[in-house]
């Protein structure tokens, strides 16, 4: 696979020349269900007009927080529901998915990390275990919660821990990290954030991933006997 140019731009802003994959960066928490179809229609028109793959804003569908990937033809080629939620969204009783489902695209095998899923190491690891080589994330961060380290924590941790490419929009900024852990662009709020990488490359340490799986299995009684906790913390 040749180099893929990824751009993180403000919602509906024209992509920089040469961009092949665009992620929208938006100041809203999500697009409400009532507006979702309109937003997706606008996003499809954008993808067709600029001939780009597009990850538009997070939206609510059937009470799930969702993210999708559109092809340059404006067709949804993959979607993912949030596996974890920002606690402020838990108050609204939104549902959570119980699996991360990477999907094949002409860009390689892609997983979408919806909102705070980028901060959850088990989600990124499960995506890589299922073959993902490119993780695309879009996260809402309140202005007063936005600090660089939080974004680095999510995107760089996912990339370095799993040897996978990550492009993440967070708050009104973005970061693109290559599978070897190199920060190609960002974190910056100076949009667009643009970088090129080979999305099929992956440095995942399969031995370590298998060892982690064995460890989890061996400690299953410890983890499974405590249904209210995950990783020792209370299920708030």
């Amino acid at each position, binding site marked *: 696979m040749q180099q893929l140019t990824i751009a993180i731009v403000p919602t509906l802003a024209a992509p920089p020349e040469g961009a092949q994959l665009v992620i929208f960066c938006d100041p809203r928490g999500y697009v409400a269900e009532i507006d979702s179809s309109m937003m997706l229609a606008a996003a499809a028109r954008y993808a067709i007009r600029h001939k780009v793959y597009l990850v538009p804003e997070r939206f609510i569908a059937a009470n799930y927080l969702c993210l*999708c990937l559109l092809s340059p033809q404006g067709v949804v080629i*993959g979607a993912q529901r949030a596996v974890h939620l920002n606690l402020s969204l838990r108050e609204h009783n939104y549902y959570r998915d119980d699996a991360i*489902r990477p999907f094949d695209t002409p860009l390689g095998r892609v997983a979408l990390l919806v909102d705070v899923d980028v901060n959850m190491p088990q989600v990124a690891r499960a995506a890589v275990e299922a073959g993902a080589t490119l993780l695309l994330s879009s996260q809402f961060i309140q202005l007063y919660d936005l600090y660089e380290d939080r974004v680095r924590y999510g995107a760089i941790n996912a990339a370095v821990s799993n040897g996978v490419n990550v492009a993440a929009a967070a708050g009104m900024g973005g970061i693109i990290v290559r599978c070897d852990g190199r920060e190609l662009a960002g974190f910056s709020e100076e949009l667009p954030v643009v970088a090129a990488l080979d999305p099929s490359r992956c440095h995942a340490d399969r031995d370590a991933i298998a060892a*982690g799986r064995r460890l989890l*299995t061996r400690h299953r009684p410890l983890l499974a006997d405590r249904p209210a906790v995950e*990783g020792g*913390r209370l299920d708030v």
Partner: protein
Amino acid sequence: MYKFRLKASAFAMSYLSNEERVRELARQIAPYRGDKPAPFISAGGLKVAAARTTVRRYRGLRDYVEDQNEPVARAAAAGCQLVAFPELGAMSAISLLPGFSALYADLTKLWASGSQSDRAEAFAELCATVQGFVGEVFLNTFSQLARSHRIIIAAGGLYQIENGRLTNRQYLFSDTGEVAAVQDKLYPERWERSMGVSAGEELTPGDTRIGRVALLTASCLPNYEPFFIASAAGCSVAVAGASPFGPSSDLARYRAQESGLCLLSPGLRSRGDFGFEYHYPARIAAPRAATRSRDGSAASPEDRPLLTARVDLERAASQFDLYSADRNPAFFRALIAGGEGPAPKEGGAE
């Protein structure tokens, strides 16, 4: 010649070292502190230390014990409840073998000329031969130092062969000098695997008066699993420090944040006494809310022989981050039940 020299050196060493001699030396160098142990009120007042040790050759038993005592004494004087040493710290006691220089030269030659299987065989033989006396010197030294200074020590460890399995084993000593935990390295390095070192099968944390402590390694840092398991097992502190194979990384901050553990990463330095030179600083990480700087660095990586830090794990436990605190037990149960992980679904559009 190498094999003969190795056996002869080990035999001679059995006359030079014994448990009581090592303990007596340690008692002389670090007399028992009859006063109260370092103050520890709660997880809000935890004070810990990470040592940056130097890999070097020792002139004798006294030299070895004095060198190990220095960071322990400094940590105890600073009021720390726990001090951590890097993994494999005991292996440099091998230089106490009589005729070590000639033995080392033989081994180096063998290493340069032999095949991979020859190297693995020589390595296993070396470990099998020296583990008795290295273990004796190491275990008795640290047991006595922990008791003398009334401090918990994550002392690192050595290669050991038990029931035909070669493992990289770490030890935790309680402040009364007892072995509180033994942990086989969960993620051996590639070189170790090529030498036949087996991975530990499960996490075996130790109970101490400051809570449960897990002995991990820098090779665990890219993997969230051991830290989650340590946290689920009720640990408050974990050790994941540098080794001769590489330094710890900034991932320590991330692992501390997501698992809620105070993470000690001891450092390591070598000036080439064993053919390698490296410089890996120590660091201490903790959940952001538990650190003064609020960035997860309780003590930033620094090239000092001893890093100390006070962390407030009570405060960390009482706060949560809107962006990373959500737990989805259904996802996690599916993950550990699946064996192969969640089933991928082609063309995930629904």
